């Protein structure tokens, strides 16, 4: 601020430099107060973006496209031999999930496709494009997305439309005739 500053007080050198010192100190103090309050507020508000799911087990899926609440519990979804070979069937099972502060058994829907007498694949029922719900119309052998026309075959591979990945699958093991799912996998 120059000494000719018309907005400043008409004062001799000593008074002016004291004024400048006080105003600058107050501005610095204001900045420090704003930072002391603002940094923790911003850090808390954005914590989810830089601190990845503290609760979730390490094996969970890396992509966040499916909105499915995730769990690494071992959950039986039905007897393998009760499923028809090659025909997708929609099953909803209760799984223990952590949703923020909520810990509950939530119903989770999956598509089960039996491949043979010893093998089955279990898919997450959401399109890999933008997460819309995939429909398997009765009698069809495809999963079709109502949003942008994506479709998948019963191997979960993309047959048309914009989806960038095959369908997301669950870890599957057959245990005493039961199809048992674990965590959702990012890569097949």
């Amino acid at each position, binding site marked *: 601020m120059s000494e000719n500053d018309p907005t400043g007080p008409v004062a001799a050198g000593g008074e002016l430099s004291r004024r400048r010192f006080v105003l600058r100190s107050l501005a610095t103090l204001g900045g420090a107060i704003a930072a002391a309050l603002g940094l923790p507020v911003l850090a808390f508000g954005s914590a*989810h973006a830089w601190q990845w799911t503290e609760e979730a087990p390490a094996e969970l899926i890396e992509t966040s496209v499916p909105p499915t609440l995730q769990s690494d519990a071992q959950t039986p979804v039905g007897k393998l031999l009760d499923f028809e070979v090659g025909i997708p069937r929609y099953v909803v099972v209760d799984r223990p999930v952590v949703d923020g502060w909520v810990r509950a058994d939530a119903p989770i829907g999956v598509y089960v496709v039996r491949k043979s007498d010893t093998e089955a694949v279990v898919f997450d029922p959401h399109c890999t494009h933008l997460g819309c719900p995939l429909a398997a119309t009765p009698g069809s052998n495809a999963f079709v997305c109502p949003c942008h026309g994506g479709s998948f075959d019963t191997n979960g591979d993309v047959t048309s439309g914009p989806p960038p990945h095959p369908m997301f699958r669950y870890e599957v093991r057959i245990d005493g005739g039961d199809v048992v799912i674990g965590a959702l996998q990012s890569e097949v």
Partner: protein
Amino acid sequence: MGRIGRWFDERLQLSSLFSSFVDRKVPGNIGWFQTLGSATLFLLVVQIVTGIALTLSYAPTPSDAYQSVLYIDSTPFGALVRGIHHWSAGLLVLFIGLHTLRVFIWGAHRYPRELTWVIGALLFLIVLGFAFTGYLLPWDQKAYWATVVGTNIAGAAPFIGDSVLALLRGGEQLGATTLARFYGIHVWVLPASLLILVGIHLFAVIRQGIAASPRRKPIVAPAPGLSRREAYEREYAAEKTAGKPFWHALIKDGIVAVILLVVIFALALGPGAPLDARADPNSTNFVPRPEWYFLDLFQLLWYFTGDQEPLLIFLVFTVAAAIFVLVPFLDRGSARHPLRRPFAMAFTGAVVLGVVGLTYLGATATPAGQVNVPATAGMTSTQLSGLGVYNSSGCTSCHQIHGLGGHTGPDLSKAGFRWEAADIKQQLVTPKDAKMPSYSGLSGQQLSDLLEYLTGLK
């Protein structure tokens, strides 16, 4: 002024301030189009008032949100207040868009009102943020799935997508943290930003004065040798001399506000605010569709697939928003009349056509997987199973047969008449057209059945 009025005025000294506000001269040629800004302000006030009322009975958790909205609707005047909030929100998006369009066509974003535009453009983006976050709060089917899609669009951005998505959802999943976060953003973060920016916007409008409608011939003959500031001040002073007091213009603003209020009440009392079934993350037959003001963006996503998508997100959402905010620094020059800015007007026309066209396409698009082309009499069993393959493989997403299906690809109603079987087969297995996905994954039997069906269409 009565005795009570004088008592207050002697203490608050408001009458001189009030008079300098309503009696100040504004350009004489401002008219109905200039009411769009005040209409936008009016709708914002309606949103704030009804929004505050709604928070009194709303609970932002997945287990309670939907029930609390049902409770609001069952409380006296609750459905009306929610209806007003819903319909006024849609009108707000419409009117802030029209206001922006009017300002650009009138060239009112030019010197010395560049900053007013920048703030206004940020306000436009904030209003869209309001729409996006407010949408989820009822926790119904439409809300849930629109948010699944919306957050995933943001998550597809290159490099920062995952962080943006985690920031929006409050984690990787869509659940309790997402709803709490959207609520906090909707009722605190955005309103606080909005009030600050609206304050600056209105302050600038009042300090600069309302821009005169552009004239083909300047109101005063240009004088040589003046600086830009001097020339502007000379012209604006002439506009004000020939102008009218601000309260004249307020008459039209008042009329528009009353009409808007009547329309909002009619919509709130008539159709009311919609409420779908409670959000069900496990439903597989729901067809997600956004509210009309996001249909254009939703429709745009049809045309970009796979690897191109992050590029689209980046271009449309980031670059377009930046261009929009920075318009005054890109569309420069002294001529304000639209007829003297043919390029800017052609560009505006293209953008408006694009938005309206995409919205129309999005509104009328047949959802894939929901259409089944029916069998017709006389079909062979092979053709019937081919039709099954056709219906179940997503063909209806892009192709029409007898009026059923999408519009992206060619109409196949007369496929057998238009193309040879070998050509159709090639197009199915190794498509020449990039938009057509390969169906090489079909079994030999499925492929031959499908071909039998398609070649039979004549």
